[in-house]
């Protein structure tokens, strides 16, 4: 425990030092990188050395001599600490090369400071055991990430994104604190252990308030609106940390409230599953409609949070039905997907950042042919794309398989559970198909083909600070896919508290792990055999190069290639009511057509809905009270006098 606190202290100190030494940029960057790496590795060592005795990792402080902040660690906290200590040091390595302008050195120092505060506060969120401690570190986490998003504060679009993020973070916190308030009113205690004593109807209210609040942080539709704005605005390694690690803190909150309440109502699991399905399908659909690289990755985070919630929902339904296999595999799939997603999403954001830095644009339709110019980035991005589409032999498939396994268990029941299980299986299949659709689009249009603009033609590979984290993460994706057994066991270990009624048979888990490993390795083996066969077949053959066959068209250019919009068009039109497509109408008015401009946008139905349904009416209603704020200071003093007199009257009557 002391080592763990020491590691957090090193991390915070490593963030504070740049504020003083920022004028010497290289020195600052090296010191920051070294301290952050040391801090995170020490944290990992502290965790792994106390695996057997997690209960001992508990401490409490007294704050302002009136409040106690209590922290403790259990299996669930341990599991959620892993992405923090794995992804954040890689982001620190990446940021070394990402921040290279000396005139921004103070801004860079502030960014380093807030990153490390974010890392420390996320670690403390997973360890909080007390309402007050949780609220304190949650708010520190939200505020530090807000400062990080606002790195490019001169741009209006960044300010809008930051403002939207701040708004949703505070609304989410409001809902979470409301839930805590309901609990406190029933139990009178701040500790998480007392949650179970709340009466049953209140438990439902608490869970749904907390679900909406944590869901807003996690990026559950319809409260995900800040995600697609904040992620493109932030620097790429910050997007990687936010998308890979921070939104998982929302998922952690949902799990923690669920465990602490101990409710086995069926409606909880059903609601989580439905929200998961909706987020998954609509998230991937909007990702297809968007053509800004980081925005589409942000929507994919929404989709993967949907998959995680589907696993969690199936697990909760399993607990309600007392089906240990369904509950175990559902939660295991959900937890393993948390880990897997943090790995491949960070990988994809690092790649996107490298590409955007080199080409100077974020728009997919202006790139192309980057695989030849940025080979390492291209290959690792390809690995990340195949992983996020959930395809074997990489890691995304392993967690999706566990969720399928649990969902098939749900088919044995009747009525609502069976229908939900059928819908869950079909929506997982659709989500997987649409995700590979979207990532073939991204890989095909960004990395393959020919460069569409001069910017893309002059791109080149970054230095090893940018490519090393990507390589490590790509390797991790393959390793988890080829050796799934250990990671599945880790996920089952992590969910020990989630299933009160016992554990899944270890032999069953072992068989599944071994079978998945067999399938992945067999596929890799057949593939390698075919590679050798192909080499043999080509041994004495004439191989030549030529231009792509153009069906007799003799003047091909890079502009005749398919673009992202055209590639995704049929599927987006298919989902019309949910994907609000706005296109400019191109009409021929004269005999000889003149220059024309075409624009197509896909609008997020949740964003439009909340804007038109909640924000605008609220603003018109509140606008009617504008007359109170007239600007006359004397009358404002009058307001104060009137309020004090009323309060004095009320308290003496």
């Amino acid at each position, binding site marked *: 425990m002391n080592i763990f606190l020491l590691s957090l202290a090193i991390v915070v100190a490593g963030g504070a030092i740049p504020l003083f030494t920022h004028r010497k940029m290289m020195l600052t960057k090296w010191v920051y990188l070294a301290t952050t790496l040391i801090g995170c590795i020490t944290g990992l060592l502290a965790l792994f050395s106390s695996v057997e005795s997690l209960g001992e990792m508990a401490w409490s402080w007294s704050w302002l001599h009136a409040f106690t902040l209590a922290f403790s660690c259990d299996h669930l906290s341990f599991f959620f600490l892993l992405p923090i200590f794995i992804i954040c040091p890689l982001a620190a390595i990446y940021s070394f090369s990402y921040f290279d302008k000396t005139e921004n050195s103070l801004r860079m120092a502030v960014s380093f400071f807030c990153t490390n505060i974010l890392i420390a506060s996320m670690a403390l969120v997973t360890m909080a055991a007390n309402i007050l401690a949780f609220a304190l570190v949650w708010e520190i986490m939200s505020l530090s990430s807000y400062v990080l998003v606002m790195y490019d504060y001169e741009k209006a679009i960044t300010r809008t994104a930051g403002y939207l993020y701040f708004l949703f973070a505070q609304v989410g916190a409001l809902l979470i604190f409301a839930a805590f308030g309901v609990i406190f009113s029933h139990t009178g205690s701040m500790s998480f252990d007392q949650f179970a004593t709340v009466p049953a109807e209140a438990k439902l209210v608490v869970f749904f308030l907390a679900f909406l609040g944590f869901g807003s942080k996690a990026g559950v539709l319809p409260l995900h609106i800040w995600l697609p704005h904040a992620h493109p605005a932030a620097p790429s390694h910050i997007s990687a940390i936010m998308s890979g690690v921070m939104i998982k803190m929302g998922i952690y909150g949902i799990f923690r409230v669920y465990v602490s309440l101990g409710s086995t109502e069926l409606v909880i699991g059903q609601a989580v599953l439905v929200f998961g399905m909706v987020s998954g399908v609509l998230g991937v659909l909007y990702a297809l409609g968007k053509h800004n690289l980081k925005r589409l990755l942000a929507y994919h985070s929404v989709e993967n949070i949907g998959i995680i919630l589907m696993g969690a929902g199936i697990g909760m339904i399993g607990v309600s039905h007392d089906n240990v296999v369904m509950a175990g595999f559902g939660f295991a799939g959900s937890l393993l997907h948390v880990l897997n997603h943090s790995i491949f999403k960070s990988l994809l954001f690092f790649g996107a950042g490298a590409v955007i830095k080199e080409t100077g644009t974020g728009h997919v339709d202006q790139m192309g042919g980057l*695989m030849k110019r940025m080979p390492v980035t291209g290959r690792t991005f390809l690995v990340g794309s195949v992983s996020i589409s959930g395809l074997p032999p990489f890691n995304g498939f392993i967690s999706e398989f566990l969720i399928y396994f649990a969902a098939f268990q749900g088919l044995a029941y009747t009525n609502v559970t069976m229908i939900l299980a059928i819908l869950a299986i079909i929506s997982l299949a659709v989500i997987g198909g649409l995700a590979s659709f979207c990532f073939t689009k991204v890989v095909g249009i960004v990395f393959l083909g020919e460069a569409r603009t001069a910017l893309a033609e002059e791109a080149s590979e970054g230095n090893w600070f940018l490519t090393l984290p990507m390589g490590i993460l790509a390797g991790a994706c393959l390793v988890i896919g080829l050796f799934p057994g250990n990671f599945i066991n880790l996920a089952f270990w992590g969910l020990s508290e989630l299933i009160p009624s016992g554990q899944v048979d270890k032999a069953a888990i072992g068989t599944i792990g071994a079978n998945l490993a067999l399938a992945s390795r067999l596929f890799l083996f057949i593939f390698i055999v075919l590679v050798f066969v192909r080499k043999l077949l080509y041994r004495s053959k004439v191989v030549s190069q030529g231009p792509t066959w153009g069906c007799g068209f003799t003047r091909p250019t890079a502009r005749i290639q398919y673009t992202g919009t055209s590639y995704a068009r049929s599927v987006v039109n298919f989902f019309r009511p949910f994907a609000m497509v706005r296109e400019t109408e191109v009409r021929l008015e004269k005999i000889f057509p003149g220059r024309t401009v075409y624009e197509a946008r896909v609008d997020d139905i949740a964003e439009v809905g909340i804007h038109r349904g909640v924000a605008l009416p609220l603003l018109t209603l509140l606008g009617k009270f504008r007359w109170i704020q007239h600007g006359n200071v004397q009358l404002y003093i009058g307001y104060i006098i009137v309020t004090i007199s009323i309060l004095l009257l009320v308290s003496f009557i």
Partner: protein
Amino acid sequence: MESFLTIALALFLAPLFPGIILKVKAFFAGKKGPPLFIKYYTLAKLLRKGSVYSTSTTFVFKLGPLVSCAGAIMILLFFPLAGVTPLLAFHGDVIVLFYILGIGRFFTIAAALDTASPFQGMGAAREAFFGTLAEASIFAVLVLFYRMTGALSFTDYFTGTTPISLAGTGGALLLLAIVALFMVLLTENSRVPVDDPATHLELTMIHEVMVLDHSGPDLALIELGSFYKLFFYSAFIFLIIFPIDASLGFLRIPLFFGGIALVYVAIGLVESGMARFKMNLVPKFVLTSLALVFFAAILTMEFIK
């Protein structure tokens, strides 16, 4: 031992069957048609040639044929050909295998987009779209089979303790599944009415146009992969209609291959009798199969208590 024999026969004989489709179509057109071994001659011709690679392509272009062929071979290793226990099987292998077909599709599409040609892009976009809908249908079929047998493995479906059979409880629901699977076969293997493998007009094609730039042994690997995939889907449909009992002994193999030939004849009949759909009707076609299987899955609530 029998497992090795059946898989070797399947891998060797798979190119024989598409010749049957061509013969049936020629019969309806009043022509003699190409010889039955035409696909073997095609493979031999392609393996003799070299390749021309486009200057726009990268290593991904060469990966496409390898991954799709590897996937198609792998799925045959898990399938109980001729009712014989396959070489490998485990609970949940159906999910893994359909996702392996999915990674084959991913790399075929990526290879198509690598050529920087709008034709390949067009085919890739269509393939990705229709493939996603077909995946939904297939998983609905898996849901139906799980409701009926409680199994998630090809072996358990056809050679297990409660195999799928038209004569069992809920057997009538299998008729819906057979029709739906046939529609998925036509979609996934680029047959009329979804795609026409005979013409070479790129604007109207899906699969044909995605492989336009491949040549030589690469194209041979792609063709081989497509033969194995079509063989798998036909075997799947045939074993649902007519599960081959283990008691038949050595007769199982000729019966199996004869039955598959009949499925290919049925494909040939469909190709001769229908024209290709307009592109915007294809999603409706695929979704009809999803609706049929979904309906069958709901009906199991009544048939299987």
